[in-house]
């Protein structure tokens, strides 16, 4: 569509909305997970603690009831071995060597009596004694040489010795690690999917809004026949488009009525003017004497002035309502100005005025040529009428980002200060001025009708400055407003 859609996506409202929505969603799901994780971790802990407590009780019983003979070590060792094979959450791939469980029995004074597990058990014993593991609830125990801590339960049997059963937390941590990894993956997928869905829907909705904006901005000052695209759905955006179009219908209707009124007014005044002028001309050509000719000619000249006044008044009136009708074509503003200067130069030098043009070469704009002619004629007529002799007029024509800019500067007396703020209004003129006072209002009218601006001010170094800007292209006609969407009409 237009250049507007090519805006960086990062600046679009759809992007922002999706970002915030996704952030909220991500935070929410993350919170749920943290809670879930805590719950699962606690549960696993509780189960392994229950197992440890149970097993250490059993081992205590066995140790109590087994006679302290040569077989004691084998019997208790066997039972401990068996118990280690029932470890909960055990990783079956860990292989035969079992280092996730150890069994330790110490005598009352702390000497190692029996050890079942990987290695010699001395480091385990040292850690146990350093951490003062007591019978009762299982505790965490870090043992040098092992990456993960052990959970250790202890019991005291009647002969004063202690039995310790340790369970590595490795398996427990692995289960939780798996859970986390899967969840993070799932969470990322969900967040991305959520972002995608939110972005897609908001982007689609907002692109409708953007199309409406695009179309509405293209419905320019002079073209009211276009409509914004409407969607088949009856949602908020659909009704926004419908409302806009209804509004445009009403505006177009009143504009049409305004045109009808000004047209019939023009017609009703011009027909009698034509008849009067014609009759006067007929009487003029009938070979009348000089005495009779003089007043007739004066009346004809007055009539022509009246006609021009009528035209300008209606144009200004229409343009105040943004309803001036244009018939655009591509024109070279530079060439047009040179021709107009050529036309006005003799009159100016006759009055001792100098006119200079500063231009960067051809400058093509899309505009109503006749209107631009009349606008510049108004500017020049204005200078001719108001500048004292020996003044200089500087014209500067350049293209800038806003379009074509035409700056007219003179070194005359400038505008009356009381008139300056109302310069572009109808029927405003300085005390010394003659004419209808429509000249600059018309300049403003033409500039506005083309989507441009006119500004007037007094220069600091004396003299007046009028700046007229005109857009290079009439975008309300170059691009089709009714783009592929369902159109209302």
């Amino acid at each position, binding site marked *: 569509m237009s250049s507007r859609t090519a805006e960086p996506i990062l600046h679009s409202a759809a992007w922002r909305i999706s970002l915030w929505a996704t952030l909220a969603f991500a935070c929410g799901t993350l919170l749920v997970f943290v809670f879930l994780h805590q719950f699962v971790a606690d549960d696993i802990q509780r189960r392994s603690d229950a197992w440890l407590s149970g097993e250490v009780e059993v081992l205590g019983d066995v140790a109590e009831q087994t006679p302290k003979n040569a077989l004691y070590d084998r019997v208790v060792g066997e039972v401990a071995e068996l118990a280690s094979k029932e470890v909960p959450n055990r990783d079956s791939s860990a292989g035969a060597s079992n280092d996730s469980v150890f069994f330790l029995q110490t005598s009352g004074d702390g000497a190692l009596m029996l050890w079942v597990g990987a290695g010699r058990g001395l480091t385990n014993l040292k850690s146990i004694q350093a951490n003062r593991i007591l019978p009762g609830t299982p505790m965490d125990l870090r043992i040098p040489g092992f990456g993960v801590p052990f959970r250790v339960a202890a019991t005291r049997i009647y002969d004063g010795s202690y039995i310790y059963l340790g369970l590595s937390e490795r398996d427990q941590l692995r289960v939780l690690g798996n859970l986390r990894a899967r969840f993070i993956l799932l969470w990322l997928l969900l967040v991305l999917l959520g972002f995608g869905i939110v972005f897609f829907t908001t982007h689609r909705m907002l692109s409708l809004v953007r199309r409406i904006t695009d179309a509405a901005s293209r419905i320019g000052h002079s073209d009211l026949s276009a409509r914004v695209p409407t969607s088949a759905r009856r949602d908020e955006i659909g009704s926004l488009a419908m409302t806009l179009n209804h509004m445009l219908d009403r505006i177009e209707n009143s504009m049409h009525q305004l045109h009808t009124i*000004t*047209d019939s007014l*023009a*017609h009703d005044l*011009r*027909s*009698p*003017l*034509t*008849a*009067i*002028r*014609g*009759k006067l*001309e*007929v009487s*003029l*050509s009938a070979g009348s004497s000089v005495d009779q*000719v*003089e007043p*007739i*000619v*004066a009346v*004809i*000249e007055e*009539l*022509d002035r009246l*006609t*021009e006044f009528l*035209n300008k008044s*209606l*144009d200004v009136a229409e343009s105040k309502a943004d309803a001036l*009708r244009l*018939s655009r074509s591509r024109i070279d503003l530079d060439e047009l100005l040179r*021709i*107009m200067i*050529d*036309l*006005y130069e*003799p*009159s100016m030098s*006759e009055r001792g005025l100098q006119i200079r043009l500063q231009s960067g070469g051809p400058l093509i704009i899309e505009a109503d040529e*006749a209107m631009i*002619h*009349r606008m510049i*004629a*108004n500017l*020049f*007529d204005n200078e*001719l*009428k108001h500048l004292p002799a020996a003044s200089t007029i500087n014209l500067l024509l350049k293209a800038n980002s806003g379009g074509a800019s035409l700056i007219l500067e003179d070194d005359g007396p400038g505008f009356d200060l009381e008139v300056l703020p109302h310069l572009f209004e109808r029927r405003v003129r300085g005390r010394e001025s003659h*004419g209808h006072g429509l*000249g600059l209002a018309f300049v403003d009218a033409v500039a506005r009708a083309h989507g441009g601006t006119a500004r007037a001010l007094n220069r600091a170094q004396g003299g007046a400055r009028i700046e007229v800007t005109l857009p290079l292209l009439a975008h309300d006609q170059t691009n089709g407003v009714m783009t592929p969407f369902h159109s209302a009409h």
Partner: protein
Amino acid sequence: MRLLLVEDEIDIQRFLRTSLEEAGFEVEAAMDGKTAEKLAMDAPFDILIVDLGLPDQDGISLILKLRQLGVRAPVLILSARRSVDDRVRGLEQGGDDYLTKPFALAELLARLRNLLRRNSPPASEATRLSVLDLELDLLRREATRCGQILQLTQQEFVLLEYLCRNAGRVVTRSMILDKVWGMRIQPDTNVVDVHIYRLRGKVDSPGQKPLIRTLRGVGYVLKDR
């Protein structure tokens, strides 16, 4: 020259008929489109003047209908409308012309003559124009009076050429602006007059018979007698 005038305003129709007949046209007038169609079918015309605002139909529809019926004569469109309709521009490109009301009679006659000339087989393009003792060499862009070269600017030459081509006929200020500068404007100031004064200063030197005459309230004429 047979001319069909289609105009519903009785006042305008009356004075147009008078001055057109005075200018040598044989004028038939119609108040509305129906009558105009009938008249055009009865006998052929050399040229037509059609007002856009007719009581029974739009002037342009009438012109298009007449064209369909085989009327080939050129049309001068009169319009009291403010903006020039795009359809009028279309017709203008098709060889017809338009004039907005109110207009100067001289301009109406000049445009009629132009249309008739355009419609007649083109005379071989002259390379020289001469009016009395004034001569224009169109190839070398040189003007002489009584054999003496006139120092004219490019623009002055174009203006003089236009006056010469219409020698003996009145040209109005708006015609000069239209044909020489290519713009339809009505300046508040006497820009055209100043050009004419300057040209006159060069063409009509003291002691010579003045060629460029001003007709106040109407325009200018280059005398050919």
